[in-house]
């Protein structure tokens, strides 16, 4: 199974092409089952691989080693031909990610079969979805940073296509563009990091870069630069500060897409990439510090914004951003295992939350939580599963979110207590806003009778994935934590002396506080919302700030506007200065020169020629006056006289 790991990205790719090119567009097309089948196959294979890796010790480099393309390169002044290799590296994180991606993908596809059924572009949706999964899996398994980057971009474009899937509406195209551009901005940093890596190492192979770093050839300054570049790229894709602005808007896409791409897999790619290049970050404490603080700031800001949002999907989006911040911060605080552990657990409960939200939206046809309420009786399965997921993400003891979050907090405290306080505050807010969402949606009075009346539980095809994910949300943490499986899968090889000891009571305290803030949330949102309204009255500026997302959108819009102005200016300059002054001016100068030439020609050159003619004429006329009677003999006489004169002159010399 392991030797055929390269098939994992290729099978969904093939499925995607089959779905896209085969058959006609039809709201009831059977072709999407090809995608589901492909995903099922990949899941099985991934599980086998996971098993292999979990029982083995070293990372595995299964054959084959193909060449994608070759280009000339220079090493030590000598040109040679570099073959860009295409091969697979299966280590602990990769195996874990494989399972996460294939599993969530499969569940989302099954869910989508029901959710998207009857959509005019049903078939295309699945083609895009499979294409996304293929790229994501390619990103996960590749042993080549360049190929990873290529897949990274492809993931971005699938995200673009899927966010803008309902392109005939006004919102999605804009959101899709925003998402693509924001991540592309981050990718610029990654691009430079890639260039730097190749210039420094002469290879894109993770294994070789790792060896290079391990041998101590990598100067810390360069490592910092590369690290920051990667961090910038990761900040784009994983929605970290300040590039997280695209993720809330990305919720314009179909909800299963949000679950798969914008919660469980793609947004984790940034974290995963930092994890894959972790050996490099380890050389540069500066880069690590940046990673940690970017994560912490993101976690905090996103959590605060989630507290005031009324759009169910946006709450989840902010929550995703916040959780990604946790992971990033953990990585930066030398909590490699913890960060990727949280990535795994988060994938399941966040996918579950999104799919649950999708189920709710499917039922009530709105995203606005103020129009929901009291849905728990109408949609019991959705309610229970989402409740479990919220407990898990909020850090209820022994659920999977609790395991990973505790681990993160512990690591972070050991690294830098200041980070710990920020993250703890975020964690408490997480518990609060998750339950705010649950209470607003499922409990209390039905605020919109019409919508409430039509609400109904979703079909089995949608609830079954929810249930499965709920199980995973409960047990993943415990399963992975047992026998320290996660520690073996994601071995932490860096020796960082623990600066601060994490006292056990602090862990219990955080857990207790988290549960407390869930209860607090009941106080505000469980019944009527009068307490909230009162609070909002008092803290209006704060609410405003949060609802406007710290004015970061405005900042970026201002930036875009600036670019537009620059573009206008550049074009004005091009059309009026370069073209008109410079080029047409040159033409004008030439024309003036031509006129001058013409004048000179007319005044001097032509006049000279005419002058000679006139002179000859005048002389002729003058001579003619000598002749009086027109007799030949007279002429002859002049000739004779002239000849004799000349003869005399010549002879007398």
């Amino acid at each position: 199974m392991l030797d055929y790991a390269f098939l994992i990205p290729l099978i969904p790719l093939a499925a995607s092409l089959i779905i896209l090119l085969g058959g006609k567009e039809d709201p009831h097309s059977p072709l999407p089952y090809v995608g589901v089948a492909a995903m099922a196959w990949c899941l099985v294979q991934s599980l086998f691989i996971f098993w292999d890796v979990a029982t083995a010790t070293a990372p595995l480099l299964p054959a084959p080693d193909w060449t994608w393309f070759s280009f000339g390169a220079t090493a030590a002044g000598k040109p040679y031909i570099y073959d860009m290799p295409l091969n697979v590296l299966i280590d602990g994180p990769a195996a874990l990610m494989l399972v996460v991606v294939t599993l969530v993908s499969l569940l989302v596809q099954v869910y989508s079969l029901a959710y998207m059924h009857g959509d005019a572009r049903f078939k295309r949706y699945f083609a895009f979805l499979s294409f996304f999964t293929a790229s994501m899996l390619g990103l996960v398994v590749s042993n080549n940073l360049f190929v990873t980057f290529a897949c990274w971009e492809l993931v971005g474009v699938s995200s673009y296509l899927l966010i803008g899937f309902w392109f005939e509406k006004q919102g999605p195209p804009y959101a899709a563009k925003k998402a693509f551009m924001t991540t592309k901005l981050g990718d610029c940093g990654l691009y430079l990091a890639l260039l730097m890596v190749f210039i420094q190492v002469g290879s894109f192979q993770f294994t070789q870069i790792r060896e290079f770093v391990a041998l101590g050839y990598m100067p810390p300054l360069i490592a910092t630069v590369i690290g920051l570049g990667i961090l910038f790229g990761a900040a784009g894709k994983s929605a970290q500060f300040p590039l997280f602005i695209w993720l809330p808007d990305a919720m314009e896409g179909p909800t299963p897409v949000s679950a798969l791409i914008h919660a469980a897999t793609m947004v984790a790619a940034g974290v995963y990439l930092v994890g894959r290049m972790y050996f490099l970050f380890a050389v540069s404490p500066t880069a690590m510090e940046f990673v940690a603080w970017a994560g912490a700031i993101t976690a905090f800001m996103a959590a605060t914004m989630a507290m005031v949002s009324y759009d169910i999907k946006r709450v989840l989006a902010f929550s995703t951003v916040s959780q990604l911040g946790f992971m990033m911060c953990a990585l930066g605080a030398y909590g490699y295992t913890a960060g990727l552990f949280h990535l795994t657990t988060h994938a399941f409960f966040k996918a579950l939350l999104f799919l649950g939200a999708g189920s709710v939206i499917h039922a009530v046809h709105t995203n606005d939580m103020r129009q929901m309420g009291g849905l728990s009786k109408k949609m019991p399965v959705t309610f229970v599963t989402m409740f479990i997921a919220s407990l898990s993400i909020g850090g209820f003891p022994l659920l999977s979110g609790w395991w990973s979050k505790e681990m993160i907090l512990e690591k972070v405290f050991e690294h830098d207590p200041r980070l710990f306080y920020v993250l703890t505050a975020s964690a408490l807010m997480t518990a609060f806003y998750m339950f705010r969402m649950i209470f607003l949606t499922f409990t209390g009075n039905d605020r919109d009778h019409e919508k409430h009346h039509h609400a109904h539980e979703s079909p089995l095809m949608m609830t079954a994935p929810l249930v499965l994910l709920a199980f995973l949300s409960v047990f993943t943490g415990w399963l992975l934590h047992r026998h320290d499986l996660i520690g073996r899968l994601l071995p932490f090889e860096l020796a960082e002396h623990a600066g601060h000891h994490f006292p056990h009571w602090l862990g219990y305290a955080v857990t207790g506080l988290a549960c407390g803030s869930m209860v607090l949330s009941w106080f505000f949102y469980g019944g009527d919302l009068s307490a909230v309204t009162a609070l909002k009255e008092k803290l209006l500026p704060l609410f405003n700030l949060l609802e406007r997302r710290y004015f970061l959108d405005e900042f970026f819009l201002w930036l875009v506007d600036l670019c537009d102005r620059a573009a206008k200016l550049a074009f004005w300059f091009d059309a009026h200065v370069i073209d008109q002054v410079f080029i047409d001016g040159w033409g004008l100068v030439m024309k003036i020169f031509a006129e001058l030439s013409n004048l000179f020609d007319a005044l001097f050159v032509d006049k000279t020629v005419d002058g000679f003619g006139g002179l000859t004429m005048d002389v002729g006329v003058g001579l003619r006056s000598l002749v009086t009677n027109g007799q030949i003999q007279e002429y002859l006489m002049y000739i004779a006289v002239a000849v004799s004169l000349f003869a005399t002159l010549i002879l007398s010399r």
Partner: protein
Amino acid sequence: MTLAHYLTVSALLFLIGIFGALTRRNIIGILMSIELMFNAANINLVAFNHFLHPGSVAGQAFVLFTITIAAAEVVVGLALVLAIYRNTDTTYVEEFNLLKG
């Protein structure tokens, strides 16, 4: 008798010819003066041939050509004179001032 003597005779003959051609009022006279100039050239040719290239006969050959052509020229010339005379009843050149501008 050196080359110079011959050349002097030839030059005198030529000058007489020129003088005649410029001053004679009768066309016949002019024609005769031209014949004199021809002969001056002939003497030159023969003299140069004799003194400078004694072995060759090119000079004499040219002279024979010249005499022949001169004869032909006189024929044409006299024919023209005759034609002019028939038209204008005169052979005096001062009567012909058609070139007067």
